């Protein structure tokens, strides 16, 4: 009998895994189960240029034709209720049983909610419907309050300004992107938002949000009140672990997987935003990444390992954000760094190299117009993967090609 591999979650990661199973020559059955009714689509544009396009359209990752051609059975709009590990089958909300030989959980993450804050003027962003609904609200003069100065909040602030909405962004910490980027880059991003007319509020927490059918008021701990037509909450995401937790798989800030993406059940793998995994280049430190590239890479790797390849995770975390004309790229885990070396590329573009206490390049954060930092961040990523200890003077000198350091 043909083997049956089932993938739960039809986002970037799940869709990639399904296609990768076929690219690897798997000839058993592949079923891709999605909670949303849509064909797999790309999420990154939802906060960025998707908000600005004249006609809003999802960019499909895999069309119905491609899925059919690859003989991937796509089942959209299906809620999986439980994993019956003993019986090796999934139970769906409508009572169907779906047997599996190997299972991949690519269940993603959901926006973290502000407790008790709900209503039709309160918005979150994750799905195409969220984006469509929000987009219709971003009109000239409309007042948008954004809670959270992270990437979703900042990208939406930029998109909202481009569409003419008035934006106030509230960040509880003293600066933007505290955990994600060094102070110098956060300052550059802040200045750009201020130039665009975004009102920024720092170091003030949310005391409460009240709203009716037409407007909302955000009350801050300081006593200040922000009046708005709508409120977008962008305070991070939480991994979708309930299926795994109820099936008693190990959980550790996400579905815990080993370096091969296997969960505590050898027939069940997890990949993408929903899982935490050990990163060898950082001494086995366990991380969970919410990024497009990670979703892709782990989807491919999970497919290989479901087929028995036994390949370990070897990628360097990589992330990007677009705001206005600025492109930000980060490779590696910058909090592993003890010091920073700066390289200026001209035209306001720069890269900050994060160096560990023992001289190893552990991360690089770059910002510039368009993709000005892309080449060097990509090379930095390769240096990080090699666990290189480049001369700091060479990193700082834009006339020294990073490619030459790679060969060293």
């Amino acid at each position, binding site marked *: 009998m043909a083997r049956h591999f089932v993938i739960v979650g039809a986002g970037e990661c799940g869709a990639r895994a399904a296609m990768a199973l076929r690219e690897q020559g798997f000839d058993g059955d592949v079923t891709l189960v999605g909670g949303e009714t849509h064909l797999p689509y790309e999420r990154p544009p939802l906060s960025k240029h998707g908000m600005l396009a004249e006609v809003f359209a999802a960019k499909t990752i895999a069309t119905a034709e491609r899925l059919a051609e690859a003989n991937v059975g796509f089942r959209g709009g299906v809620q999986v209720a439980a994993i019956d590990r003993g019986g090796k089958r999934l139970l769906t909300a409508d009572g169907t049983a779906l047997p599996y030989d190997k299972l991949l959980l690519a269940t993603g993450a959901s926006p973290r909610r502000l407790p008790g804050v709900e209503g039709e003027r309160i918005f979150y962003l994750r799905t195409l419907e969220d984006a469509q609904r929000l987009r219709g609200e971003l009109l000239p003069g409309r007042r948008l309050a954004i809670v959270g100065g992270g990437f979703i909040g900042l990208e939406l602030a930029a998109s909202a300004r481009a569409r003419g909405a008035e934006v106030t962004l509230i960040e509880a910490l003293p600066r933007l992107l505290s955990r994600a980027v060094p102070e110098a880059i956060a300052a550059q991003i802040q200045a750009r938002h201020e130039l665009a007319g975004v009102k920024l509020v720092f170091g003030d927490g949310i005391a409460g949000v009240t709203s009716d059918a037409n407007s909302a008021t955000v009350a801050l701990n300081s006593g200040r009140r922000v009046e708005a037509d709508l409120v977008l909450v962008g305070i991070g995401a939480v991994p979708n672990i309930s299926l795994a937790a109820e099936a008693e798989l190990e959980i550790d800030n996400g579905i815990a997987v080993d370096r091969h993406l296997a969960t505590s059940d050898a027939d069940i793998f997890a990949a993408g935003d929903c899982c935490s995994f050990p990163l060898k280049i950082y001494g086995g430190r366990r991380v969970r990444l919410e990024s497009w590239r990670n979703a892709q890479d782990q989807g491919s790797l999970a497919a290989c390992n479901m087929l028995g390849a036994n390949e370990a995770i070897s990628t360097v975390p990589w992330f990007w954000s677009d705001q206005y004309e600025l492109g930000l790229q980060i490779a590696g885990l910058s909090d592993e760094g003890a010091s920073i070396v700066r390289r200026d590329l001209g035209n306001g573009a720069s890269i900050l190299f994060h160096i560990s206490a023992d001289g190893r390049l552990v991360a690089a954060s770059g910002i510039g117009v368009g993709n000005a930092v892309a*080449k060097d961040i990509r090379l930095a990523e390769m240096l990080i993967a090699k666990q290189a200890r480049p001369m700091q003077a060479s990193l700082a000198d834009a006339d020294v090609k990073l490619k030459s350091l790679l060969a060293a």
Partner: protein
Amino acid sequence: MVEWIEACGADDVDEEDVIRFDHAGKVFAIYRSPDDRYYATDGLCTHEQISLADGLVMDDIIECPKHNGRFNYKTGEAKGAPVCVNLRTYAVKLENGAVFIEV
């Protein structure tokens, strides 16, 4: 009609690198390989229309600066997800220290 267009000086492109060339509303990418030959392709990635000239060239491969889609710039072949549509390539000739492409 086929015509040869001067794209850049031979020295404008470093070895194992790429530059952008705009002509008649179209974007091209001009490459110089590690063995010092010149190649040309369409300049925008077939995935999200990103300029490939901001990407990294390693050996025969150009990698999109945004989503790491990879192409062999000598043949235009897409090397896997997220890119699945090949890049168009153009004939190249060197004359008097300049790079010409056939468009």
